[in-house]
């Protein structure tokens, strides 16, 4: 029975391949595993091997054709076997099939191979030899017309099995290693020396240890990468004088058992601003901007194995005490792994607080589908001239990042200023 020859799918993202050259003409005998044609993807040039022993019964596409992957491009079978007139595709349109004359079908192999120093070589073999600095005149050809094929060149990169294993493990390209074994065979010591050399030259950093990514790390990483690459983001830093708030907080906390944190005041202040100004509570839909009603503030919580952003729902309707309790509870649940799906979904804006780490300013990454994330920085001593007197003021940066597709600079700045004003007049937070 005739066996199909496919355009191979030589990689996850390979959609189509170009036929560089057929190595066999119709009617020619082929052995299973023998090179039948050469194809090219956007990444590699490779040989397609005959799937069976027999004769090449037909070729549906000729040199230069761009063919979708897993499309039948020919058949190999017994002479005289009947094969379909038309190629079968596995979906996808076939583009640019150049017409070929009858003569080209019978092109002898010699004509499609290059001659280098009198040695016939397939283009793939030539490319491999060049990449590995292999002298083609020293390569033993095994092609049916006496041409050097890719497999012949590959054989020439002599390496010990151990060297091969180590190189594969370390991702080292053996063609860059000079072998010390018999006729430059690459040995373990050569591979280790190359790795050591790369490490000292800084090309490859020394690896102390590797730890597999946790499920959460993978998800967080993907989300971060998506947000970072997709969003045209801007970070604006606004300085806030926290002197009054610190004094106010001390006063409020004086007789309280559950002390309120600076973060609680900030969340409450942000919630209050958002209650009246919902310009930044937006998300990007397919063809529209979605305006949110609820002030649901995501609070970034760092965990050993990643990051999670539980949500204080309807924060604008909660008292400072309620916000404090909610943040405390969510944070504890996050750290003990007790968050429910509802606890970390539905945020409309997020806050990331690095104040306890001495961070002066930073560029937080927007927590999609939010449009804005507010980065809270450390409170720092700063000398200021107040009424012609030098005073020590407590200053804190708000680093606000926004998605510029949804929010413009003036809107973001106005929002930051409102938050600043509220924090600088702490009594107003509660009123």
């Amino acid at each position, binding site marked *: 029975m005739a066996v199909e020859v496919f355009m191979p799918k030589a990689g996850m993202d390979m959609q189509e391949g170009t036929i560089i050259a057929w190595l066999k003409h119709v009617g020619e005998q082929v052995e299973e595993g023998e090179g039948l044609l050469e194809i090219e993807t956007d990444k590699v040039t490779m040989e397609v091997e005959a799937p069976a022993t027999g004769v090449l019964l037909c070729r549906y596409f000729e040199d230069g054709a761009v063919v979708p992957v897993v499309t039948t491009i020919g058949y190999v079978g017994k002479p005289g076997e009947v094969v379909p007139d038309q190629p079968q595709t596995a979906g996808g349109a076939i583009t640019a099939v150049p017409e070929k004359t009858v003569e080209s079908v019978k092109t002898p192999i010699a004509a499609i191979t290059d001659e280098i120093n009198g040695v016939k070589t397939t283009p793939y073999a030539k490319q491999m030899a060049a990449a590995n600095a292999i002298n083609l005149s020293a390569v033993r050809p095994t092609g049916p017309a006496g041409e050097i094929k890719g497999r012949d060149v590959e054989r020439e990169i002599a390496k*010990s*099995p151990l*060297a091969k*294993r180590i190189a594969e493990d370390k991702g080292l390209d053996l063609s860059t290693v000079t072998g010390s074994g018999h006729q430059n065979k690459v040995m373990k010591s050569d591979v280790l020396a190359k790795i050591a050399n790369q490490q000292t030259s800084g090309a490859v950093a020394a690896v102390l240890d590797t730890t597999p990514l946790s499920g959460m790390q993978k998800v967080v990483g993907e989300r971060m990468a998506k947000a970072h690459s997709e969003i045209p983001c801007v970070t604006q830093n606004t300085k806030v004088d926290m002197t009054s708030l610190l004094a106010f907080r001390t006063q409020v906390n004086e007789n309280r058992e559950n002390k309120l944190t600076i973060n609680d005041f900030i969340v409450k202040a942000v919630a209050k601003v958002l209650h009246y100004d919902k310009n930044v509570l937006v998300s990007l839909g397919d063809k529209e901007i979605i305006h949110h009603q609820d002030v649901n503030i995501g609070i970034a919580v760092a965990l050993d194995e990643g990051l999670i952003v539980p949500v204080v729902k309807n924060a604008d309707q909660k008292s400072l005490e309620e916000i404090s309790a909610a943040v405390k509870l969510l944070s504890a649940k996050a750290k003990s792994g007790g968050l429910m799906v509802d606890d970390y979904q539905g945020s409309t804006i997020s806050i990331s607080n690095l104040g306890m780490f001495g961070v002066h300013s930073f560029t937080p990454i927007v927590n999609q589908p939010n449009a804005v994330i507010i980065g809270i920085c450390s409170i720092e001593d700063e000398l200021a001239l107040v009424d012609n007197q030098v005073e020590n003021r407590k200053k804190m940066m708000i680093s606000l990042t926004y998605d510029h597709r949804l929010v413009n600079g003036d809107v973001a700045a106005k929002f930051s200023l409102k938050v600043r004003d509220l924090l600088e007049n702490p009594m107003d937070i509660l009123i």
Partner: protein
Amino acid sequence: MKNGFDVAVIGGGPGGYVAAIKASQLGGSVILFEKDAIGGTCLNRGCIPTKTYVKIAEYIKHIKNARSRGIQIDVSQPGVNMVDVVANKNEVVKKLTTGVAGLLDSNRVKVIKGTAELTKDGKIRCDGQSYEAKTIILAGGSKPRLLDIPGIKSQGVLTSDTLLDLETVPKSLVIIGGGVIGCEFATAFAAFGSAVTLVEFTDQLVKPMGKNIYKVLRKTIKAQGIKTVLNTAVASIERNEAGMLVVTTSDQKTITAEKVLVATGRCADLECLGELHGAIEMNGGFVAVDHEMRTSIPGVFCIGDMNGQLQLAHAASKMGETAAVNAMGGNEKVDLRYVANCLYTLPEAATVGLTEEAAKKEYDISIGTFSLYANGRALASGETDGFVKVIIDKKYGEILGVQMVGPVAAEMICEAALCMSMEITAHEVAATVHPHPTYCEAFMEACADALGKCIHLPRK
């Protein structure tokens, strides 16, 4: 004075003659001096003669076991005619030494019979003649080391040199030293009919080969009627009035025997150093050399037992080849990592590479073992004492060390040594089809076991 030699080699053993031929192959004019017989200790007084003896011991063992294999034979106590044994041995030796002489001749190596010595001016003096060469390769070999024991020079106290010419089988033989030499002679003479006692200073025989090998040998040596006294030094040897030798041990016990063999190692034969004694840098009792076999004196190389790197004939040959290449202008280094150690007892034992202890220090290891009790050829041959143990690096399957005991262990170790030097890993060995039934299958199985996928072992 005769001039014009590129390379002069002093000593015609397996190091020296190989060096001479190699230098000649590389286009050098070569002269070789030998004070005794071409072939050195190996061919004349070591490897080869002892193997003829051990082979005879093996025949005797088979004859003794013949009835258990269904052979009808009427020999209750096979014995040897030692005169014929020695003659047979001499014939073998003669064939080989004649062969080597022929090789030297065909390579146009000029061979001078006589004791050669270096002179202060860097020349060689032999029988009053002076010779000059651009480079000199010292291959003086070694000689039995005699410990400083009272009575060690008594009549009847032999070395491996003199024991090999003994034309009667001693009724009793005490062997001082349970190393390779001691064990091989014990095997031979026990089979010949001597009552053999091995006296060893350490806690096991052939200590460098490790505990696993000794565990098997302890049993087989005992089965051959050889007595073993461990953890014991010899305090004195005395010849009593009856002409018997009385060996007194450090714990004041005495063993009486007709003959005593001193097999306590071999020391460098430094005679050829001549006037350069004291001028050439030494390392213990041996001539110090670098990896290229160069001594402290420019143009002078030293190989084999004389430099003490590794006292094995095959190691000497490798050193000889390298020294010759370097004497002819090369810069090769000797790599002795994969030189196998072989012990020719019944059964044989062999090792190559690192011991388990040494491997553990450098690698995360996995160990595979395969007993000959599970090997078809061994069972069919009635030779099931033995095993193959393979130590590999867990990560890449690199074979780090191999130890084995078995009827042809000295042959089987070659596969392991080849794999190791060519960096073939346990993965490839396990995947290589080994003919069945062969002892060599055990190596493949041990490799597979180290990888946790041995077919012929119960699941762990």
